């Protein structure tokens, strides 16, 4: 029960990468919580944001629209948005939207960090 409430963590990694993990239902509230965490990480100097959706099984179109706002803000500042650990359906959702042309999708956090931070890490 209570998958409504989203569980978030936000961390500054090396090389200007900010990591957000989000587990739960990404609706307007969940999306807004991610946007707040993203704004915070950007203020702390992160030009690249990695959103790990492990534990998120459903995302609605309002949540999606908020993720797009985050992406636009990052692109405006020559930054970069990446996602990892998507369910097949969320992956398909991002494909349908054409999001994959603007954001990088990694299979899991390890692969994402190896690439984005420029060194192997865990």
């Amino acid at each position: 029960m209570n998958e409504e409430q989203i569980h978030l963590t936000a961390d500054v990694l090396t090389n200007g990468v900010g990591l957000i993990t989000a587990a739960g239902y990404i609706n307007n509230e969940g999306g807004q919580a991610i946007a707040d965490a993203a704004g915070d990480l950007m203020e702390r100097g992160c030009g690249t944001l990695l959103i790990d959706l492990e534990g998120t099984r459903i995302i609605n179109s309002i949540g999606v629209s908020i993720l797009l706002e985050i992406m636009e803000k990052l692109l405006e500042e020559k930054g970069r948005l990446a996602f990892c650990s998507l369910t097949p359906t969320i992956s398909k959702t991002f494909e349908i939207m054409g999001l994959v042309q603007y954001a990088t999708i990694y299979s899991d956090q390890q692969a994402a960090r190896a690439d984005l931070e420029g060194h192997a890490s865990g």
Partner: protein
Amino acid sequence: MEVVLHLPVVPNVELVAAKAVEALGGALGMSQTRVEAACVAIVEACLNAMEHGGGEVVVRLAGENSSGRPRLVIEVEDHGGGFDPAKAPRKTVAQVLGCASKRGWGLTLIRELMDDVQIRSRPGQTLVRMCKYVEGGP
């Protein structure tokens, strides 16, 4: 095997419909990925019915097998002003970048994630009827 839901407009009530998809999809032997795709579609149809319809939303789900290909059939009905579904084209991210509103993904997702979608809408009644076959890749 039929589920009927009468849902009021309250936050997260669309998840009641998603849960019904999980139970029925599971009973039909649908894979988790196909169940989740149908969940996204029913969530979007309910959100539209709540936002644009306004009043109670009626949802029906049934397992059907008439054509020999088992499927989950979902209907989402509202009694709002209606709209012309032909005027809601497929969206892409490229179109919304730079726009103030990033909204408008519901119908695109419904059409792409389900195997068959029919929308009948007139003032006073909108019915979104969609189906997902039990088998199919992925």
